[in-house]
């Protein structure tokens, strides 16, 4: 049993760390918040999700404003794909609340554990992609992209050139983005891993455009499920406040540090933490 003041202080510090490391390896801090709340503090998972998703809105919106200003984010692609991610988020949060009300919370633990393990793999994969250079960017026009204006160009500071791009395989990308929204609503995380996968790997957008546009969409995606959780009473203000403050502070610091260091050791540490938490979440779910 932890007192309220102790909780606020401890969770504030944990959230700073989660936001810091999350920003440094390119994941939101949200993915660490739910395991911390459920495993460390024994908070019911629906309230943990409610607290985590609030912080996701704040970190996404805070960093999105900077990328929008730098004209890297593709606003139209983001806003079009938000139809899919918001729809997915609504379905996801209703599914989670159905599990909770049916006494099936253990299912959420197992799904969360699997996502943590998948994210560990993704952090490893991203490191490789950054080492091996640019992904395949599509520049061939197509009818869907033309009609929906899903193209653009951005100033790449490393290549010192304007990189033009055209979205391809839009329907398949849309489905993956819907799944990302589903994951976000289901687990109270940003779902950026899947969003980037849909835009980078499927729609063949530049990696930098994919990550910043994904980040831009996360705030609105998270707001869809947060609205339902908030009105439903699952966003506990005392639980959520230190998380929101800590993750925002941490991710702002992490973004600054990222500019200076190549955090290979931090990546390895993060992968280990993700795998351990994933195993713990799966075990908790199995042993319900």
């Amino acid at each position, binding site marked *: 049993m932890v007192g*309220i003041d102790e909780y606020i202080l401890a969770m504030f510090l944990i959230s700073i760390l989660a936001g810091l490391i999350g920003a440094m390896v390119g994941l939101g801090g949200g993915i660490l918040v739910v395991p911390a709340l459920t495993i460390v503090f024994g908070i019911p998972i629906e309230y943990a999700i409610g607290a985590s998703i609030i912080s996701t809105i704040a970190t996404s919106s805070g960093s999105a404003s900077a990328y929008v200003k730098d004209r890297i984010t593709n606003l139209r692609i983001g806003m079009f794909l938000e139809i899919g991610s918001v729809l997915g988020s609504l379905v996801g949060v209703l599914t989670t609340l159905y599990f909770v009300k049916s006494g099936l919370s253990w299912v959420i633990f197992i799904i969360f554990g699997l996502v943590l393990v998948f994210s560990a793999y993704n952090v490893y994969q991203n490191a490789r992609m950054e080492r091996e250079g640019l992904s395949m960017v599509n520049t061939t026009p197509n009818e869907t992209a033309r009609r929906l204006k899903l193209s653009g160009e951005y100033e790449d500071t490393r290549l010192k050139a304007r990189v033009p791009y055209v979205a391809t395989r839009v329907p398949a990308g849309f489905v993956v983005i819907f799944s990302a929204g589903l994951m976000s609503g289901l687990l109270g995380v940003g779902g950026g891993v899947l969003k980037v996968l849909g835009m980078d790997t499927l729609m063949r957008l530049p990696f930098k455009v994919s990550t910043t546009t994904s980040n831009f969409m996360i705030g609105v995606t998270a707001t869809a499920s947060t609205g339902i959780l908030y009105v439903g009473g699952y966003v506990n203000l005392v639980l959520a406040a230190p998380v929101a403050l800590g993750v925002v502070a941490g991710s702002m610091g992490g973004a600054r540090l990222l500019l200076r260091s190549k955090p290979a050791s931090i990546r390895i540490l993060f992968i280990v933490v993700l795998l351990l938490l994933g195993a713990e979440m799966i075990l908790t779910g199995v042993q319900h």
Partner: protein
Amino acid sequence: MKDRVGDDELGDVVGAILRYGVLLSSVVFAAGVLLFVANPPAGASTSIQAAVGAGLGRPTLSPSSIIGGLAAGNGLSVLEVATMVLIATPVVRVSASVVLFLRERDMLYAGITALVLFMLVLGIVVIGPTQA
């Protein structure tokens, strides 16, 4: 290229809404936490688990009790305002996009952003209350 000027304005407006929304809510969150710790409400001397179970920190969703709480210096009311500012930020961002696309006469994107706005409002106004 014809959309370039309009899109720059869209980026500026959207960026400013996000920046100031998050800044405002963070400041209010910080004030709420400090007030809550300095002046704990009744029932706050228990464990965090028991407090959550007892509904301490559950949003009131009532404008009159929020205003009353603010006047009485209740940290929980301040935290409720902070949360609402945060949730409102992306909603305002999408609403502003609808207006800007309408002004650009980009009906396709006015429709797309209006659909997103509709789903957000549907969640808060229609679906949310059924889940309480």
